[in-house]
């Protein structure tokens, strides 16, 4: 008896472990605060917004379409393959099963990379079809491995008996063999569907621009903080699958019915409910998915359309409403893709695998792209709204774009320290606080090479564009010293963690600081006295852009004061657009010291410069050494 209780308790423990994160996510879907770190009260608004959010819905339907298609194709191909392999001679069969096992046993990352290399080598353009091929490939083993054991169990004599009774091989197969292996086929299909749905790594390597599955969409949002709509969506998906499974499980079992003696009426009733629960409901769900998929895919923008512009921007860097406005006004379809760091964006442009039309790199990266001849000159006749950009910013831009030929300033800001007033004792005005033992495990550091080294170099009194190996080694030494004090290296997650009081001090971009202050008034931002980095992210057009005029129309559009202001409301990053700034209603924001600091403070700040591939490699190497300590 006691043993039974221990068993039950253990089972319960495992189930709690498995489902605790899921319950957490469900709870977050009802959190009215946008930040996951703070409970802002109960709301159902995300569920409403979810259905208005085209980006998420499109990603959802892409995911479902790929899961459904890849599972279907893999099931057909895999079932046929399993039957064929089963008929092979032992030697070949063992070999084929070995090959089949590869995608399942191989690391996802290796499978993903190998397929990416193949696609690029054979000039497949990365997109929906490459994801589909990749998913079919890793789904196949699941199908084959679930069909194979069934085939082994199947009694060959029933098939031969059917032939003996005059059935054609095809008829015999579908009437005798197929029903026997059907459970294997359907469980293979279900597994394939689930695996495809849950995959991230392989999709991450094989996807192209404009196509996002939920996984890749979520990953690109991880660093920013997930949008609550995604929690709502996941909750809906999870609950509908749960519901489906419960329905299938409560449907009266046919085998049970056969064992018991039941009245004809009961049998009939059971038959009907079985039919409803096991056939109609799942079928209805498939139909809904398909119709929804068609609806959204006709609405969604896919690569290959003539009148489009492919934009590659930072995550959450443009109000989606602005994109819709642009599309409505011009009739140009916007294919929108996001990246997390300059370093992730650069190789994509350089490899030329995808022809982007508009990209938004930071200052030093623009310099590097100009140097490597990756950018096209902008025809400013098509961008009259350039007049709205403040002169001071155009002047700053000359540091990396000497003749203002390639870039249009989009957003700018500074790097500084965000601190929690209730968690620090002294006024903060220096980088030195990041090396203060007092704040061990309460420091959030930027997880990018140049930002991290910039902080250390500035603290040492050097230029943040230093290429002097001694200075860099000194900075590296400082960063290694700092590592034990650091709670985490993050990019945009500083935001949520600071809001949730997880840390006392964080290195952050000024734009994020404004938002965090709105969520948590205890937070304060400062540009340290040693000086810091001022950065400008500008819109550029890559040389291999296929829709240059559309790109210029797009750039011109975002340079409009109304649009710039709209974007400021959306992300609270400083805008170089003087016209836009004038439109900001709240005076405390319009004159915010964080968003628009005094010129005097900016004097201490430097922009990053491109230091050359070799120096970049030195930086990367030094940084990797810091990280792997």
């Amino acid at each position, binding site marked *: 008896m006691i043993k039974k209780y221990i068993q039950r308790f253990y089972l319960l423990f495992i189930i709690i472990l498995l489902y*605790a994160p899921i319950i957490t996510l469900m709870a977050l879907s009802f959190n009215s605060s946008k930040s996951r770190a703070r409970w802002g009260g109960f709301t159902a608004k995300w569920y409403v917004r979810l259905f208005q959010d085209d980006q998420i819905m499109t990603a959802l339907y892409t995911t479902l379409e790929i899961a459904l298609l890849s599972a279907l194709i893999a099931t057909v191909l895999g079932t046929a393959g399993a039957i064929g392999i089963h008929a092979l001679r032992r030697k070949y069969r063992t070999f*084929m099963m070995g090959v089949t096992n590869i995608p399942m046993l191989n690391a996802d990352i290796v*499978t993903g*990379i190998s397929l990416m290399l193949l696609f690029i080598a054979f000039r497949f353009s990365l997109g929906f079809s490459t994801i589909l091929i990749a998913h079919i490939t890793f789904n196949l083993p699941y199908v084959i491995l679930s069909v194979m054991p069934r085939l082994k169990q199947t009694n060959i004599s029933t098939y031969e008996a059917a032939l003996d009774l005059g059935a054609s091989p095809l008829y015999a197969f579908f009437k005798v063999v197929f029903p026997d292996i059907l459970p294997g086929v359907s469980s293979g299909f279900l597994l394939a569907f689930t695996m495809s749905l849950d995959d991230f790594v392989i999709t991450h390597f094989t996807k192209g621009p404009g196509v996002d599955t939920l996984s890749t969409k979520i990953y690109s949002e991880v660093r920013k903080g997930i949008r609550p709509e995604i929690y709502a969506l996941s909750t809906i*998906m999870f609950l509908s699958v749960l519901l489906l499974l419960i329905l299938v499980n409560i449907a009266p079992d046919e085998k049970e019915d056969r064992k018991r003696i039941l009245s004809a009426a009961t049998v009939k009733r059971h038959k009907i409910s079985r039919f409803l629960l096991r056939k109609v409901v799942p079928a209805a769900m498939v139909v809904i998915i398909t119709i929804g998929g068609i609806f959204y895919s006709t609405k969604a923008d896919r690569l290959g359309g003539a009148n489009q512009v492919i934009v590659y921007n930072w995550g959450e860097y443009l109000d989606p409403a602005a994109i819709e406005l642009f599309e409505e006004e011009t009739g140009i379809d916007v294919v929108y893709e996001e990246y997390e760091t300059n370093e992730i964006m650069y190789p994509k442009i350089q490899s030329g695998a995808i022809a982007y039309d508009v990209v938004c790199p930071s200052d030093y990266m623009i310099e590097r792209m100009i140097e490597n001849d990756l950018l096209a000159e902008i025809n400013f006749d098509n961008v009259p709204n350039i007049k709205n950009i403040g002169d001071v910013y155009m002047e700053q831009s000359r540091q990396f774009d000497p003749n203002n030929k390639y870039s249009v300033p989009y957003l700018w800001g500074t790097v500084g320290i965000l601190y929690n007033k209730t968690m620090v004792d002294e006024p903060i005005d220096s980088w030195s606080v990041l090396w203060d033992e007092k704040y061990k495990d309460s420091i959030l550091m930027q997880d990018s090479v140049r930002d991290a080294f910039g902080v250390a170099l500035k603290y040492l009194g050097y230029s943040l564009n230093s290429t002097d190996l001694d200075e860099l080694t000194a900075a590296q030494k400082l960063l290694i010293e700092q590592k034990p004090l650091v709670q985490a290296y993050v990019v945009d997650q500083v935001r949520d963690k600071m809001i949730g009081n997880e840390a006392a001090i964080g290195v952050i971009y000024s734009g994020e600081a404004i938002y965090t202050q709105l969520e948590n008034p205890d937070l304060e931002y400062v540009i340290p006295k040693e000086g810091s980095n001022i950065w400008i992210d500008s819109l550029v057009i890559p040389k291999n852009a296929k829709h240059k005029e559309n790109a210029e129309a797009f750039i011109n559009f975002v340079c409009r004061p109304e649009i710039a202001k709209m974007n400021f409301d959306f992300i609270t990053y400083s805008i170089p657009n003087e016209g836009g700034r004038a439109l900001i209603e709240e005076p405390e924001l319009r004159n915010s010291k964080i968003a628009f600091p005094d010129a005097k403070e900016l004097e201490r700040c430097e922009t990053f410069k491109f230091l050359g591939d070799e120096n970049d490699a030195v930086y990367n190497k030094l940084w990797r050494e810091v990280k792997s300590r």
Partner: protein
Amino acid sequence: MKNRDKKIKRLLAGPYIIWAAGFIVIPLLMIFYYGLSDKSGHFTFHNIAQITTPENLKALGLALLLSLISTAVCLVLAYPLCMVLTNLGVNQSSFIVLIFILPMWMNFLLRTLAWQNLLERNGIINIILGFFHLPALEIINTPYAIILGMVYDFLPFMVLPIYNVLSKIDSDVIAAARDLGANSIQTFLRIILPLSVPGIISGVTMVFVPALTTFVISDLLGGSKILLIGNVIEQEFKQGSNWHVGSGMSLVLMIFIILSMALIAKYDKDGEGTAF
């Protein structure tokens, strides 16, 4: 008649064989090509040798350590669980399998991310612990959190194959052992455990390989302070843009994968240990 039948059946394997050649074998050869050549296409071992730099070795070593620990934890958690599940009876087997597959319908990234919420200093677990005046759990951004994430994400891959072999063991065989005088511990050690080896091996590889190569879990739960070999490779491809070195490292990883395939081939000849 029979021969013709077999030939037709073999033909059915055709499309799959072509697919496997095109999308499994050739891509692997591509990795070999990149891994063994430099930017100008000359043959070199330089890329593979990159694994011996201290930081890469450390990333590999740490990945090995963490994945071995989490594989062991998964095994220790899963085995008794499967025994309990087997005892519950056959009727519910499909339902049991579903309990473990169901969480996959919540995106894997989100599930992992939710652990941040649970584990953070002011996270849910610590709020609960604080309520009972218990000491706070501070493992976020440490290797322990990564192990937890690995165990959480890959536990089903350990449970399913072990459950599968255990539920296939003839109850008469266990009864026979008891009948011949073995007590429950002896029955477990001499009969149940040896018979479940295929499932254990399959579970171990299915947990070990993804745990060894993950870059997402260490990213999300390790606070980017902890670099695993998966992170190194991912960065080579997505940030450092040195595909040759990345491929070279992937080849190193493949050694471990080939080892686990060999293990499976040795202990699970009949594919009894498949998870599904």
